[in-house]
Every structure is written in C-alpha cells, then in structure tokens.
C-alpha cells in the first residue's frame, strides 16, 4: 500500500470514528458540557473537510480503482481436512465510496447546522445531537465497508438510529408507533438481506465483496442460487429504500423532526439501499436486475400518484422521495448504473434541500404542516421560496439543474432497455412519473407559497428563518445546479462525475447476464457495418449495442421528458394557481380515484388487516395454546397422577387395610363362637377330651 493510500485509509477511519466519539461524549457527558451541539456540529464539519480531501485525492489523483484495507476479525480455527472458518472485515475506498462520503458528511453537517435553530429549546436537545452523530457514524460505516457483514451490521445500526430519531418525540404515540413500524418493516427486508448473505457466505466462505466477486467469477456460485442471492440482498434495499411493497414506513417516519427527515429519510439512509445495489452490482444476474427494475418502476409510479393527493407538506415530500428512490432502483435494474448513482447524489442535495425548506416553512408556521393552512409565504420567506423553486425545478428535471442531468440519464437508460428487451412498461412508467413529479411539486409550491394566505393569524407571525437555517438551503440550492457535475448542461456524459463513476464489470456467468451484444436482430439490421459472425455462426454487433441504443434515443428521450415535465408544471399552475380548472370539481369527478390515492392505495389498511392482525392473532392463539394445551397437558398429567394416587389410596384403605381388618374381625367372630364352649365345667371338658380322644383314635387308626 502506497503512502497516500494508507493516509487515505487512516483518514477514512477518522471520518468514520469522529461522529462515534461525538456520540459517546454526548451520551455520557451531555449534560455537563456546555454547547454540546456545537461540538457535534464541529465534528461533522471536520469530517466533511476530510471527506472532501479523500474524494479529491481518490477521484482525480489515484488511478487504481480501489484502495482496500482488510483485517482478520475472527478466526475459529480449522477442522482437519476442512477450510478454516475466518471472518475478514475492512474498509475500502473507491470512487463511489469517496463521493458518498462527501454526500453523507455534507448533508449531515448542513443538517446539524440547520438543527441549531430548528431544534432549539427541545427537551432532549443533546440526545438529539448524540443520535445524529450515531447515525452519521453508522451511515459512514455502510459507505466504507468492503464486506457484507459490516454492511449488514451498519445497516442495522442506521435502522436503530432511524428508530431512535423518528421516535424523538416519543411522548406522542404516533411518533413511537412510526419508529417501531420503520424498524420492523426494515427488519423484514433485512431478513431477506441476511438470507442472501448466508447464501453467499455458505457458498464462498467470505464476506468480502472482492472475494465474493472473485468466487462468482470462478463459478462457485451461479444459476438460480445466484439470482436468488441477488434478489434476497435486494430485499434489504427494498426495506431501507422504501420500495414497494415495504414502502409504507417512510411516510410515517415523517413523525421525526424535519431535519432528521432531510438527513435520514430523504438524502442518505434511504439511499443506502441504492448504494447497496450499486455495491453488489457485479453479482446481479439479468433476472435479478429485471426484478429490481420492475420493483423500482412500480414504486416510482405508486408513490408519485399518492403524492398528488396528499395535503401534509412532509407527506408529499416523503412520497416524492419514495418515488425518486424507485427511479434510482429502476435505473440500476435497467443497467444504467452510473445514472442511478448519479441520481442518488443529485437527489440527496435537492431532496435534503426540499425537506430543510419545508422545515423552514414549518418552523415559520409554528409546526403547522397542513398545506391547506398555508399560502402566500413567498413574500414572507423569499430565500426559502427561491431555493425551494430551484429544488423543485431540479426534481422535475428542467434543464440547467442537476436533476435534469441525472433523471435524463435514467430515462434514457430505461428507454434503451425497453427497446432492447421489450419491457416497454418500464420506460412508459418512467416517463409518466416525470409528469406526475412536476405536477405534485408545483402543486406543493403553489399551495404553500403562492396565492392568498389561508391561516391569516399564522401568516402574520411567519417570518424568514434565521441564517443557520437559510445557509444550508443556499448551499444545497447551488449544488442543485448542473455545473457541479458537468459543464455541459444537456449532456452529463463528459462531466467528471460520470467519467469517474463507471459501471463495474459484471462477474456473472455469461448466460445469466445481459449480453446486449446478442440481443436484437433489428439492431444488426440497423447497423450492418458493425456486425460480425461468431465461430458458431451467430451474427453479433461489434460495438456495445446498449451504448448505441442510448445514443440513438438520447434526444428523443430528452425532449419527451422535458415536454412531460413542462406539461406537469403547466397543469399544476392551471389547476392550483390560475384556477382554470376547479380543483374541487375535479376531485368530485374522480372521487373514487382520489379517495384511493388519498388513502395511499390502502396499503396500511391491507397490511394491518393481514400481516399485523395475522401475527397478533397467531401470537394470541399460540399463547392460548401454550397456556391451555401444553400447560394443560402438564397440569392434566399432574391431575391424572393425583387421581391415580387417590385411587390407590382408596385401594390401600379399603382393600389392603380392609383385608387386615377383616381377618381381625373374622378371628373375633370365631372367638365369640368358641367362647360358648368354654363353660367352666370340668365335666364338659372331659367330654370334649373324650370326644377328642375318640376322634384322634379314628384318625390315627388309618395309619
């Protein structure tokens, strides 16, 4: 390991452990240290600085794709004739790690800063900062780990810090319920992840990503089992990234403080699922990727439709987050690896911005979250408003924003994928969600900032938030501009970001992966100059068909998405601002659909009636079974034995003892009879003696 590499590894450990140190400090001495909040915030900014250094070094100056540091954590020795059982752990830095480090520390430090004002005077202020520190530690652990085990461990730890932070105001039942729900729903996904890890470990005897990929490349894990492993590991992402069907926890998680929502439930933790898929991307088979693509697309669509009908500002953003995460997952599923990860990063910036912006609004409105009570805030809160607009444009995918670059790449990828594989549903959903996204985002802006104030009293007291809250917004808004990622506002391909984030080589055996080269004969017909013939006589395309298709549909896709986004914005203005279409009337006309969407497709009700009620019923019936049947058998056996003992007691009393008493009684009877003989007269006795002699005489005469 070269000196610079080892420096980077040391620094990465520093980044990882600094927030943990902060957490420990705050938990044990929280009450005794003045301004604990500033300590924790300062720690995060130091971590941010180190992370930026690591990223710049790694992305721009180090050629090797990956710096690995591994140590032996556990050695259980070996059986004779068996490979030993060892567990190696460690951290690794490659380009996506380095970028994620910056994303996490950046958002985290901005959120720390924002919370200084937002959480001021909270009952558990130092506890709040401690948990934020713990979350940052766990999230950085996910980012840095180079193996499945640490990944899973930190995966659980972010889950628990999310649980603690959602339930920060645990006096409210809804908050503690939401925390519990989040953890348990995540756990369901994690069990899948866990089983996936077990498959991988059992087959390949290592947790290290590098070892696993090498093992798969050597063919030690393939076929349906590999697909199953991929899908099961993806289950973890389904839970954490709130994908259908486990998306129900994320909207409830909005019970937590708004900066927490921005950090955990918008920018970083929920993106961990996407990061996980990106990490294990080389081992995903074509079948697994197809599943991933469909799950992503379905999620994106369902949550976008729900977002349109919500009135709580945070709920809208929550469903928007779910929808965008669906996009990212879909992108990875359609093999648009770089685009998916790109969207993760841009989304982290603008969605954190949106949440912090909504936090700013909620702060100004004294913890009012219902958009129907807002309106006209544009004049009162100009910074919040304008940054909010930038974020919304970015999420809607309007040119010059970062969101346009990443989203367009995803849509292009999905279109190419649809064309090549025939899964047309995926691009169709992808494009329709563009329209929905633009519409619900501008519905939100219009209802919150435009028009007349609806709650005049609260409006009067509303004012622009303090600087510690607006500075993060401004930073994030500027990061939502294209220039940070690529100098070409229409095509990110040549920007540093996509240059440094390249799709890793798949290690999946050939027949199980997308081999775009063999796909469509149509393509061969389109590009006759670039075809060849294999040894077995098949025709193939010499260049990358996927890349070719991407370039071919690039502009079509671009204009289509732009048109749909603009249409969405236009519709929002038409209905909510200019009121050309009466929203209420529209609502009445499509009442069943609206109710259906307003109630979030009834997922909570469905799960409540099936999974939750089923488990509770099962647990109640098992407890009953235990108390009555099993314990009943035990007690029944005891009763039986008691009964038996009573029976044998009676036997003893009446039969055994009865026999004894009977013999006594019989002897008495005999005695009473014989007493009559005893007359006391000698003469009688002599007669008896005589008779006796005669009897004896006769008896002995025989002999």
């Amino acid at each position, binding site marked *: 390991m070269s000196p610079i590499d080892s420096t980077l590894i040391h620094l990465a450990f520093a980044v990882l452990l600094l927030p943990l140190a902060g957490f420990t400090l705050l938990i044990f001495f929280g009450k005794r240290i003045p301004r604990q909040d500033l300590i924790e915030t300062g720690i995060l900014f130091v971590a941010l600085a180190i992370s930026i250094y690591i990223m710049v070094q790694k992305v721009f100056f180090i050629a090797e794709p990956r710096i690995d540091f591994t140590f032996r954590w556990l050695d259980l020795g070996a059986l004779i004739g068996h490979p030993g059982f060892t567990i190696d752990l460690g951290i690794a830095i490659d380009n996506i790690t380095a970028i994620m480090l910056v994303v996490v520390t950046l958002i985290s430090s901005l959120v720390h800063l924002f919370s200084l004002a937002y959480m001021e005077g909270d009952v558990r202020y130092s506890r709040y900062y401690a948990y934020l520190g713990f979350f940052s530690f766990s999230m950085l652990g996910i980012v840095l780990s180079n193996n499945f085990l640490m990944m899973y461990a930190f995966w659980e730890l972010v889950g628990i810090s999310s649980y603690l932070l959602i339930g920060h105001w645990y006096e409210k039942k809804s908050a503690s319920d939401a925390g519990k729900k989040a953890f348990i729903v995540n756990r369901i996904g994690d069990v899948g992840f866990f089983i996936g890890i077990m498959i991988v470990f059992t087959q390949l005897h290592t947790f290290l990503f590098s070892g696993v990929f090498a093992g798969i490349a050597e063919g030690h894990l393939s076929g349906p089992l590999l697909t199953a492993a991929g899908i099961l590991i993806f289950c973890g992402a389904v839970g954490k990234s709130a994908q259908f069907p486990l998306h129900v926890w994320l909207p409830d998680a909005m019970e937590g403080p708004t900066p927490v929502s921005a950090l955990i439930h918008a920018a970083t933790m929920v993106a961990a699922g996407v990061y996980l898929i990106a990490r294990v991307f080389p081992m995903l088979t074509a079948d697994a990727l197809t599943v991933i693509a469909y799950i992503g697309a379905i999620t994106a669509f369902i949550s976008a439709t729900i977002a349109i009908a919500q009135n709580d500002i945070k709920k809208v953003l929550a469903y928007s987050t779910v929808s965008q995460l669906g996009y990212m997952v879909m992108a990875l599923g359609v093999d648009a690896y770089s685009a998916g990860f790109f969207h993760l990063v841009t989304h982290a910036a603008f969605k954190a911005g949106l949440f912090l912006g909504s936090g700013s609004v909620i702060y100004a409105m004294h913890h009012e979250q219902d958009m129907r009570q807002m309106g006209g805030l544009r004049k009162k809160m100009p910074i919040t408003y304008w940054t909010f607009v930038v974020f919304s444009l970015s999420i809607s995918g309007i040119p010059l924003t970062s969101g346009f670059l990443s989203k367009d790449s995803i849509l292009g990828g999905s279109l190419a994928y649809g064309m090549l594989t025939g899964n047309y549903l995926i691009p169709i959903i992808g494009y329709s969600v563009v329209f929905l996204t633009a519409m619900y985002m501008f519905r939100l802006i219009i209802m919150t900032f435009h028009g007349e104030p609806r709650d005049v009293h609260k409006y009067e007291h509303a004012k622009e938030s303090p600087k510690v809250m607006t500075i993060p917004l401004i930073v994030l808004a500027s990061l939502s501009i294209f220039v940070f990622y690529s100098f070409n506002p229409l095509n990110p391909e040549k920007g540093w970001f996509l240059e440094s984030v390249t799709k890793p080589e798949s290690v999946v055996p050939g027949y199980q992966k997308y081999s775009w080269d063999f796909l469509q004969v149509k393509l061969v017909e389109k590009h006759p100059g670039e075809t060849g013939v294999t040894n077995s006589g098949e025709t193939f395309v010499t260049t990358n068909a996927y890349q070719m298709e991407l370039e071919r549909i690039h502009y079509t896709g671009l204009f289509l998405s732009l048109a749909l986004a603009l249409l969405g914005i236009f519709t929002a203005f038409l209905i909510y601002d200019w009121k050309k279409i009466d929203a209420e009337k529209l609502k009445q006309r499509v009442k069943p659909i609206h109710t259906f969407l307003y109630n979030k497709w009834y997922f909570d009700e469905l799960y409540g009636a099936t999974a939750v009620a089923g488990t509770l019923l099962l647990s109640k019936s098992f407890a009953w079974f235990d108390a009555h049947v099993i314990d009943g058998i035990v007690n029944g056996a005891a009763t039986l034995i008691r009964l038996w003992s009573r029976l044998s007691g009676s036997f003893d009393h009446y039969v055994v003892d009865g026999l004894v008493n009977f013999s006594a009684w019989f002897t008495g009877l005999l005695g009473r009879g014989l007493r009559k003989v005893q007359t*006391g*007269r*000698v*003469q009688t006795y*002599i*007669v008896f003696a*005589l008779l006796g002699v005669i009897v004896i005489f006769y008896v002995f005469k025989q002999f």
Partner: protein
Amino acid sequence: MAVHIGLTQFLVVSAILFSLGLYGVITRKNAIMVLMGIELILNAANINFVAFTRYGAMNISGQVVAVFVIILAAAEAAVLLAIVLNIFQQLNTVNVDEVDNLKN
C-alpha cells in the same frame, strides 16, 4: 367249658370299670360322687398295670406303679375330701355346678 382267663378279660374288666368311673365323673353333680368316679378310674388303671405285670412285658414295675397309685389315690382322696368339706362349710353345697365363684 373251661374259660381261659387271659389279658383280654382283665382289660375288659378294667375298661368297664374305667367307663363306669368316667360316667360318674361326667354325670354326677355331687363332688363326693365325682371323687368316687375318679377312684374307680384309678383302680381301673391299677388292674391294667397288674395285668400287664402278669401277661405283658412290664415285669415287676407294673405292680410297683399300682402300689404308687393306691398311695396316691389315698392321698388324693384325703386332700379332695378336705377341699369338699371346706367348700361345703363355705357354700353349703357340694354341687360342682354351683361352685362357680371364680367365674364372675
């Protein structure tokens, strides 16, 4: 007809005498009569002893025993008569059935 007198005749006489004695002992209520029955039994035994001396293998010891029995009978008669006399003086009866003071 010359009757040969042998052991059998002695034994028959002795048995008759014994039976008469026994009858007396069993049936009489008078203590004196009972005493006489006992004397008859003893003498029946004496006849037997003497007869066995003469015909059997007892030699002289049969006669010796008979003499002992006579002495014993005399002593017994003396003691018993004394007892009966005392009983009569005490209870005014010699009926053995009425002498049942020990019974209650």
